[in-house]
């Protein structure tokens, strides 16, 4: 459910972005835009998804390529505008353990506006009296709501959500997802959890070893994966009463240093996979795989 805005949002996108700490890149040549309807970045540990999120938040400068905010490179952009437009929602640990949660939220508000703390807590379904508590006196779900309240304080138009529910119990997670889905903001969701992406994002990008391997509408991507890795991810998720999950190849093989990074894990890998695959259109999706046409559909 997206509400149309009178004011068009300055689009945020990555153009051929390579990222890393020190000299070793962990994200290679990624191009993607944050569009309406929610965008998911799906990947497992080490895929570079959090690094990419930090770049979108202006916390990390690309080694090469550009993060564009509207038509301007983020390094030349008006950061005061940008900070009011784009806010992160990290995991619940994103609260200073020594600060009362009211003070944490107030930090996001101009001095004259501190009275809004109670409104914001109310907006995320928390009792305003909790403002006087410290993070460890709250439950995991309550902490996550506080994190969301603080992000909302500046009335951002885009939220960058980094695994916002992965540390929570399922019943709590369900309520937080309801809250997030009901918010009137655009979102970029970073997660390893396919079910959460399905709930919150119309479009998704699958990252493997720092590269986008498949992009497309979330529903289609999960119904008929065109990349063997997307398929492996989907089939590895246990389903209630379903067959035992399958790893789809050797899940712990390290990414290949040359050619297709996935080829050492890939059950379809052939000699052509020693050449790096380019992103190409396959059935309405962008896929980086030589053997996309051979991925079994089941």
């Amino acid at each position, binding site marked *: 459910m997206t509400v149309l805005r009178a004011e068009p949002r300055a689009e945020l996108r990555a153009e051929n972005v390579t990222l890393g700490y020190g000299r070793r890149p962990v994200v290679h040549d990624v191009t993607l835009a944050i569009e309406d309807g929610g965008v998911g970045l799906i990947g497992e540990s080490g895929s570079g998804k959090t690094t990419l999120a930090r770049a979108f938040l202006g916390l990390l400068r690309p080694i090469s390529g550009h993060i564009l905010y509207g038509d301007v490179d983020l390094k030349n952009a008006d950061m005061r505008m940008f900070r009011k437009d784009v806010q992160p929602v990290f995991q619940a640990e994103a609260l200073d353990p020594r600060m009362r949660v009211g003070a944490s939220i107030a930090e996001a508000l101009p001095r004259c506006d501190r009275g809004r703390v109670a409104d914001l807590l109310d907006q995320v379904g928390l009792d305003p009296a909790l403002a006087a508590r410290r993070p460890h006196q709250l439950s995991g779900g309550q902490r996550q709501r506080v994190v969301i309240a603080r992000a909302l304080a500046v009335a951002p138009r885009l939220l960058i959500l980094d695994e916002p529910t992965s540390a929570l119990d*399922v019943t709590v997670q369900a309520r937080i997802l309801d809250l997030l889905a009901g918010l009137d903001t655009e979102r970029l969701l970073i997660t390893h959890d396919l*079910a959460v992406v399905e709930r919150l994002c119309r479009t998704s990008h699958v990252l493997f070893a720092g590269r986008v391997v498949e992009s497309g509408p979330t529903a289609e991507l999960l119904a008929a994966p065109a990349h063997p890795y997307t398929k492996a991810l989907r089939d590895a998720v246990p389903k209630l009463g*379903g067959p035992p*999950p*399958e790893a789809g190849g050797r*899940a712990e093989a390290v990414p290949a240093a040359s050619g297709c990074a996935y080829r050492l894990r890939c059950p379809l890998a052939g000699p052509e996979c020693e050449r790096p695959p380019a992103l190409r259109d396959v059935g309405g999706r962008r896929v980086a795989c030589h053997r996309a046409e051979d991925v079994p559909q089941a």
Partner: protein
Amino acid sequence: MIEVRDLRVRYGGRVVADVPELDVGAGECVAIVGESGSGKTTTLLALLGLTTDAEISGRIRVCGVDVRTAPPRRLRAIRGSRAALVMQSPQAALGPATRLGVLMRRALRLHGRPATRQVMAAAMEAVLLDPALLRRYPHEVSGGQAQRFALALAIALGAEVILADEPTSALDVTVQAEVVGVLRRLRAERGLALLLVSHDLALVSTIADRVLVMKDGAVVESGPAGEVLAAPSHPYTRELLEAMP
């Protein structure tokens, strides 16, 4: 292999786990599911006599040993050899400065078992690990490999029961699938009994024969996995199932 009757664990008068009945036979897999604070981990620790400062009542038999009354020496012999505990992140439990092979050899000697190369290699192969990994240090293997090494250790020591506390929740889904595959294999080929503590209902439904659903220290529902998860009778189980994304 595991037989529990009227287990009640109290901390300072407060009941944190109350399990009227829990049986795991050879080759069976039973899962305890629940959210944080439900008492599922406490139950698991109580089965091995690993809770300190807790008042425990009821009857606990693991591998034929009465855990509550057995002398400490007898209990130690059970723990770690016939009944193995597998935790969420085994890497923390493995000494960082010792190669995996040395760890395994020491454990074997400690329990008076032959520590030959063949025994060790066979245990590694049983969990689909390359025996060459025995030369690595714990930080040089991935999380899934470390978890499977913990299982290999249990196999080498002749475990009959494995008690696993969220063994895959720190792992990526594809790696989780591999570890689950190994657990299923061990059960089928060696008749291992498996007691699994997990928050993941879907995962549990694919591997467990029976489930106990716990909430706030009490078992709210138990029965065959298929029945409980397909037609839950308790509202909390229903809530859990509906919350699943």
